[in-house]
């Protein structure tokens, strides 16, 4: 099948998911509240006299995003299992991969929304100057997010059909999140410290490589998770 078809069908799946999400809004609201709560908890779980805000901010940011994303990822395929709609998708004359790409787009929009809420809150609560570094920070967050959401979307297609979906997904996904996460934390620290962009170029490159490898891999492997 031609790739414009794949993208068109993927977009149909993604926009349907987002419409469903927009109708109920429970998931995105819970995730947003979760982000706020984690940030508040962090405020009480640290000693402001020992470590400066800017030093701690990258860790806080990425721990918050990681857990919020994990909470969100199972949702995409749970939606399809509710009325066996997944069988309908598999029956439709579309590439299996377009289902995956659609879910990936929807999850990325979802996680990006959470991050759009998280970054200003971090700046507000911890007095971190993000405004002057919005562009490099945005690129960094985008690159790191694509990688782990790609793996997470693939894994959630499997875990939702097991008995312990909510627990199994983090157990499977966390070892895969650690490489992009560790690069992102280091690079975020440099960005917030006002270091020149050239210092984080290496990390950005590695994040990009990770994204390319795992998005490609997931597109090829996804059909194996749904073909019986």
């Amino acid at each position, binding site marked *: 099948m031609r790739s414009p078809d794949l993208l068109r*069908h993927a977009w*149909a799946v993604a926009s*349907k998911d987002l*419409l*469903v999400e927009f*109708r*109920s809004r429970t998931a995105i609201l819970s995730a947003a509240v979760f982000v706020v709560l984690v940030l508040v908890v962090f405020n009480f779980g640290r000693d402001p006299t020992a470590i400066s805000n800017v030093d701690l901010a990258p860790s806080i940011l990425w721990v918050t995003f990681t857990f919020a994303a994990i909470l969100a990822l199972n949702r995409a395929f749970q*939606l399809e299992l*509710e*009325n*066996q*709609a997944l*069988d*309908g*998708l*598999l*029956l*439709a*004359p*579309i590439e299996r991969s377009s289902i995956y790409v659609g879910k990936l787009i929807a999850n990325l929009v979802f996680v990006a929304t959470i991050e759009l809420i998280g970054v200003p809150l971090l700046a507000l609560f911890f007095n971190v100057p993000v405004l002057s570094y919005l562009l490099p920070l945005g690129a960094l967050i985008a690159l790191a997010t694509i990688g782990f959401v790609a793996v997470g979307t693939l894994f959630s297609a499997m875990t939702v059909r097991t008995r312990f979906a909510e627990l199994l997904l983090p157990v499977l996904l966390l070892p895969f999140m650690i490489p992009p996460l560790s690069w992102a934390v280091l690079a975020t620290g440099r960005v917030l410290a006002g270091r020149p962009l050239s210092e984080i170029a290496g990390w950005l490159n590695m994040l990009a490589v990770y994204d390319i490898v795992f998005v490609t891999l997931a597109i090829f492997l996804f059909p194996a998770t749904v*073909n*019986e």
Partner: protein
Amino acid sequence: MLLAEGLRHRFGAIRALDDVSFTVQPGQTLAVFGPNGAGKTTLLKVLAGLIQPQHGRAAVDGGRRAIGWIGHQPQLYGQLTVRENLRFWATLYDVQVPGDLLPRLGLEAHVDRPVRALSRGLVQRVAIARALVHDPPVLLLDEPFTGLDRVAAEALSRLLAEHAAAGRASVLVTHNVEEGTGLATDIAFMRAGRFVHLAPRAGRGAEQVSEDYRNAIA
């Protein structure tokens, strides 16, 4: 139009299909009766290409695009309206929702209501509309009468009759002999993955088929 050849499939210890073969020609409706767990749903999924059988071969003329599926699960999104659901499924088949589809099923009054606000019977009618959105030449029906109110059941029977009259094929699986017999041109009984009976209906009524069924399955 639809062909099954020596299908065998097992899930771990459970033998779901055991050497099942048959063909369905245009205009034929095959009704497969069997108790729960006889492998009926697996058979339909193999025909639809949702399950790759471990042995044997299933083929439908025209491939996946030619198949319409009506199951006991509606395959609809509860938060979306009837119109949005149908439009989404039509997009995947690269077609428009046919204008006469909703009136035929008596759904015009409900197009802008979310599916989860509809009654069970109405939801099933929407599911039927969903399956017909691309005007499929082959219909696969898995316990389609479950949960239908009388009006909807009659509408479905009428649709299936029209479908057959237009020279199209259907396979219907159910455990309820009374429901399926009237529509069928051919009858099969299934037990533990095997076809223990496969013959044209040849004018048998529901009572006669019921008796044959009891004799064959017991």
